[in-house]
């Protein structure tokens, strides 16, 4: 019998020393990993049988083989310590390895089919919309999302719709009402950015229209100040939208690098303005 040919004592020693995943068995001159080892601790350690090159085994047969491939052990619950030897050394006829591969392939195919069906059912546009909704906020939803939200406005806050504040009702359709101090602080931050934008606009107007003799270079720099003012106020509006939505959802406020690039742009434009004015005079 094959069972009698397997020396069980080294297996039990290995269980005590190294754990189930280090177990080797000696079978007809070859090292064969056990197919199933039931351990006294109440767990079954299952390893796929792995054929190792036949080589002389010294001592108790626990020499570690070289050049073998081994799958990860699978642990299940059990009571006793029993060892089932590998029935064959041919991996093509191995029920465990073949079963695992077949199950893996079957699960892979089922997962792909299920994912395709789910994607078609939900629609790709909806999934992209949710991704943009998470990352960029309400400002970049586009016409399609705005239309969807407008359909739900009447049922969400009819008082605001009656007053004509559709935009406010649209904003209130997200999350819950935050502390009023947060909302007011967000508004003041937007207003501070607007003040900065108006200051940039004033610089551009003063350069482009109030100087007695404007050169094309000065007018170009003035236009750059004005464009920067418009970009700053648009960015402030988007930032206000994103922050307000994060406040209403109770999320952490997202960081922004607007201050950095606005400061860099102001420094560059200020330097260019100074050089242009000095070269003009």
């Amino acid at each position: 019998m094959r069972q009698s040919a397997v020396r069980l004592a080294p297996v039990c020693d290995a269980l005590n020393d190294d754990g189930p995943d280090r177990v080797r068995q000696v079978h007809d001159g070859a090292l064969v990993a056990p197919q199933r080892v039931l351990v006294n601790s109440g767990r079954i350690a299952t390893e796929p049988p792995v054929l190792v090159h036949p080589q002389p085994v010294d001592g108790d047969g626990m020499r570690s083989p070289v050049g073998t491939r081994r799958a990860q052990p699978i642990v299940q619950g059990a009571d006793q310590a029993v060892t089932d030897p590998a029935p064959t050394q041919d991996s093509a006829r191995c029920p465990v390895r073949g079963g695992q591969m077949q199950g893996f392939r079957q699960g892979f195919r089922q997962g792909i089919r299920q994912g395709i069906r789910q994607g078609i059912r939900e629609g790709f546009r909806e999934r992209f919309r949710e991704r943009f909704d998470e990352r960029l906020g309400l400002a970049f939803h586009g016409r399609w999302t705005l239309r969807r939200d407008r359909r739900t406005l009447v049922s969400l806050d009819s008082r605001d719709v009656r007053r004509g504040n559709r935009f406010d009702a649209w904003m209130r359709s997200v999350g819950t009402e935050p502390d009023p101090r947060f909302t007011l602080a967000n508004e003041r931050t937007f207003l501070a950015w607007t003040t900065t934008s108006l200051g940039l606009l004033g610089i551009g107007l003063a350069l482009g229209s109030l100087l007695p003799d404007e050169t094309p270079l000065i007018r170009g720099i003035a236009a750059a100040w004005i464009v920067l003012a418009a970009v700053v106020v648009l960015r402030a509006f988007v930032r206000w939208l994103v922050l307000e939505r994060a406040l209403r959802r109770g999320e952490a406020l997202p960081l922004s690098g607007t201050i950095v690039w606005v400061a860099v742009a102001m420094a560059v434009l200020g330097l260019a303005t100074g050089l242009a004015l000095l070269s003009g005079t």
Partner: protein
Amino acid sequence: MTRRHVGPSDPGLAGERTTLAWARIGLALLGLPAALGGYAASQGLAVAAVAAAFAAALGLWLLVSSLRVQRTQPDMLRREESVLGGHRVALTAASVVLLALAALLVVSPS
């Protein structure tokens, strides 16, 4: 309406600060477009003058609206109503962009 509180409420001063900030923006949006519109009209830039006039009207509306909000906001806070002023924020951003376009028309070489 459920509302999240983070500590002792101090809504009055925050509302007042916000109202003053709105008033500053209203004054700036009233004065800057007026100067720009006058200059554009003297240069014969009708489109820029109209845009500046529109922005100035919006600034005047913001100034009046901020005064009205200052009067009604404490009652809204006591009733735990929302103090969200999203439409004013959007209109302010739009008016500043409009003003920037008018300014670009003015400073661009003819």
